[in-house]
């Protein structure tokens, strides 16, 4: 059957069975309106909560924690290694609508410790456990003087076998077992403002140190530390042998990890390969995603969830989960309405098919296949679903306007009271339409099969 013929048949049906079809479409429209209204409310409330009440426009996504290996796993020595984020996934996150930028992080995959700070503190202080991350240097470009936050091995110095061979504050970067290393300027590191604040407000007063916040950036040379790689108070790296390098703090940056030192990515990758193996060098340990606004963080959380990543800051996730839960519950109510209305479609179409047995038989006699009869019935239902869906969407939108208006008029002002409690993203319209058509068609499938099975000989035998 040609499409034009199908359209003609359906148009004739809409004209003559208008009343019966409108009756059954009403239920579908009501179900669609309920569904879309509740989903829009949930999306709107979530956007308000994440965008204004908890203004988080950046979120750190992590791969799932290594599963608890269990007793058997412990005995066999398996499991343990976290999966990490693949570079592909980082790119994909960057393409999520509303994402401003993505900062993949490579954490130090081995123990490290540090001592230093004599230049501005008067004497050395130490960190027996040094957490550290590596980031793409370009991400700190705005906060650090050009050329400072780069991998020193991009421009390696002369060959060396120990630090004595290097001049001017440089050290010999040489992994254990390698015959000859190269002289390297101190590895640049950046710190977070948060860390500086903690140091100045809590640690410095307790120990009588001067505050470093202002002086840190002013000093051309920064603060130099010696960092012990592969060894800390708590243990040693699984592979490689511990060695000491020099590092220098070159700036304060919003891209730096909150606690610990942040190095250029290439440096951490090299060290991780040396002390943690190939996988530790390739897979990112987390990714900080900056959204254009807090409202879009919800989308980022959803996109991350599809890649198996979850937010490190659980507050955003909790809000998200709570609202999603309530939304799911309300959608369930709408689902029930839709199922009930699908059964009303079934009733209507069953009656329609029964009443049209003679007509169906005639069509079969003049050349219609059983499949064409079924397709005709299902198409009619789809068109009914389409109109019902359009009506439902309009009703949902109007109800949302009314609810917003009522809230503006009747509710007292409270913090973060939004202009609208609803969000109608483009896909919600499609979703509403899709469900409306889907449930209409589902309701009509039984009657369509009955229509296809009408026995033409018997139906034509009567008058």
């Amino acid at each position: 059957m040609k499409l034009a013929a199908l359209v003609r048949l359906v148009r004739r049906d809409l004209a003559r069975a208008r009343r019966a079809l409108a009756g059954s479409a009403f239920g579908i429209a009501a179900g669609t309106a309920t569904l879309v209204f509740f989903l829009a409310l949930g999306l709107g409330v979530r956007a308000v909560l994440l965008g204004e009440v908890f203004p988080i426009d950046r979120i750190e996504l992590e791969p799932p924690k290594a599963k608890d290996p269990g007793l058997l796993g412990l005995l066999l020595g398996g499991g343990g290694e976290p999966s990490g984020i693949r570079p592909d996934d980082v790119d994909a996150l960057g393409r999520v609508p509303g994402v401003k930028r993505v900062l993949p992080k490579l954490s130090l995959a081995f123990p490290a410790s540090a001592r230093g700070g004599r230049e501005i503190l008067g004497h050395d202080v130490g960190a027996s456990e040094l957490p550290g991350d590596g980031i793409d240097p370009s991400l700190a470009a705005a906060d650090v003087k050009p050329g400072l936050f780069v991998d020193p091995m991009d421009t390696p110095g002369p060959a060396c076998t120990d630090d004595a061979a290097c001049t001017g504050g440089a050290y010999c970067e040489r992994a254990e077992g390698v015959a000859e290393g190269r002289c390297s300027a101190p590895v640049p590191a950046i710190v977070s403002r948060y860390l500086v604040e903690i140091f100045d407000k809590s640690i410095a007063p307790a120990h009588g140190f001067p505050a470093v916040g202002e002086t840190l950036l002013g000093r051309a040379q920064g603060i130099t530390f010696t960092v012990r790689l592969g060894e800390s108070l708590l243990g040693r790296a699984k592979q490689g042998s511990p060695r000491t390098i020099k590092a220098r703090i070159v700036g304060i940056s919003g891209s730096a990890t909150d606690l610990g030192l942040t190095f250029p990515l290439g440096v951490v990758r090299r060290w991780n390969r040396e002390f943690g193996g190939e996988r530790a060098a390739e897979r990112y340990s987390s990714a900080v995603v900056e959204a254009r606004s807090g409202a879009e963080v919800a989308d980022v959380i959803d996109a991350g969830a599809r890649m198996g990543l979850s937010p490190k800051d659980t507050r955003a996730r909790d809000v998200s989960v709570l609202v999603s839960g309530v939304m799911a519950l309300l959608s369930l109510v709408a689902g029930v309405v839709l199922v009930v209305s699908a059964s009303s479609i079934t009733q209507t179409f069953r009656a329609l098919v029964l009443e049209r047995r003679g007509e169906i038989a005639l069509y079969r006699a003049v050349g219609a296949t059983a499949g064409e009869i079924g397709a005709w019935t299902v198409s009619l239902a789809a068109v009914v679903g389409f109109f019902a869906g359009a009506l439902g969407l309009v009703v949902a939108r109007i109800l949302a306007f009314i609810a917003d208006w009522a809230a503006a008029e009747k509710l007292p002002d409270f913090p973060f009271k939004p202009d609208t409690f609803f969000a109608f993203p483009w896909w919600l319209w499609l979703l509403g339409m899709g469900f409306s058509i889907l449930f209409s068609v589902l309701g009509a499938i039984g009657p369509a099969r009955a229509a296809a099975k009408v026995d033409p000989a018997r139906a034509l035998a009567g008058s």
Partner: protein
Amino acid sequence: MSVPAIRTRGLSRVHDGGRDARRALADVEIVVEEGEFVCVLGPSGSGKSTLLAVIGGLDRGYQGEIELFGEDIGRMSDAALARLRGERIGFVFQHFHLLHHLTVIENVTTPALFDPHGDEEACLARAKHLLDRLGLADRAGDTPAELSGGQRQRVAIARALLRKPKLLLCDEPTGNLDADTGARIIELFEEFHREERLTIVAVTHEERLARAATRILRLHDGRVDASNEVSA
């Protein structure tokens, strides 16, 4: 010699009506050559309607063999059989089976809805030509309710002939018409048979239709009485 339009071998049809299964057709062997006008005469309940439904591929619950234009319809898929019906066979029923929500011209063009290769303009021209030929040119926009019985049957005939079938199957086509109107319909069959070499099989219990036929078969209790075969 060319393939016959219809050939049946050992054709039987048992309606499973609960305890007393009824044998509506029993061992029917008939051959209808192309261009014949065959009238099947028999009393009510003798199996005439069953015979037409089975031959026309509307009723597939038969035993035996039916060949239409050399093809065994028992081996055809439901869809292929439907296509064959659309292309080669026209049906005319006692109760017309017009669609009352449609106009006359829409009724006549109904078969085109299920013609995958149809050309809308050609179909409309053909429908108008047929209505003209059947004396209904000025009734194209009317609904069946506004027509007399004879006019309705003529609309049904136009519908049956729309796609230029080779075989017309008629079940008591004059059964619902008065004598004069019925006579006019019978004349139309004769004309179409003569002018377009249309093969016609008409079943009836009325002798007057038989007079127009080139051959008469008599059906009794589902059996064709070969000795009674009469050529006109």
